[in-house]
């Protein structure tokens, strides 16, 4: 199944609700909630709370992240906000400011 791709030159101001995988290369302001995986690619800008399944972040997120699975902050990622996930990895080179809740 083709997953949703918010392309590099696209901006969404509002609420995005996805029952499928989401790849973000562009900009989202508002709210992003996905049922499955979320990939935030390098260059993407998210100013929103993000909820979803497994998440891989190489872009920029300002907002709280809630995952039902795992969160990977990759090198180059910039995250300001709290992360709630059962598993989290923060790669060397990732910027992160916020609290982690692994309960």
């Amino acid at each position, binding site marked *: 199944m*083709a997953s949703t791709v918010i*392309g590099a030159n696209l*901006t969404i101001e509002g609420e995005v*609700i996805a029952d499928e995988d989401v790849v973000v290369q562009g900009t989202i302001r508002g709210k992003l909630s996905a*049922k499955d995986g979320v990939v935030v690619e390098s260059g993407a800008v998210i100013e929103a709370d993000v909820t979803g399944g497994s998440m891989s972040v190489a872009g920029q997120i300002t907002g709280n992240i809630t995952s039902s699975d795992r969160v990977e902050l990759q090198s180059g990622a910039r995250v300001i906000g709290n992360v709630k996930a059962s598993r989290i990895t923060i790669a060397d080179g990732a910027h992160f400011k916020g609290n982690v809740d692994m309960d």
Partner: protein
Amino acid sequence: MAQPKASSRDVRHNPPRNRGEAALLGANVRIRGRISGDTDLTILGNVEGDIAVRGDLSIGDGAHVESEVIEAHGVSISGEVTSNVTATGPVRIGSTARVRGNLKGSEISIEDGAQFAGRIEADFELPAALSGKSR
């Protein structure tokens, strides 16, 4: 070797793209808010809110879009749309489409089977017999 012929549309309207992947909003996605950008965009899910893209917009069969204004270059609709559409290029209403709203574009086509309620505004030359105000 024969070169593949570039369509005139590509020549006239080919905004530079940073990446290969164009934007795709899948069938299981709902968006409430404003969508803008200078890429092509394909919508297969639900969108409630205005859309303004500089590239081509395709609203697929099964998609549902409700907004005040849709602005794009070319617009191709096969889904359900309640909105005014302002295109700088052609507007194509496919056979499975259900459209309510006013359409504006360089060319408008409506396929057999499509449902449409609204006004159409397209620039074209009327035949002389029809162009007079009263005769």
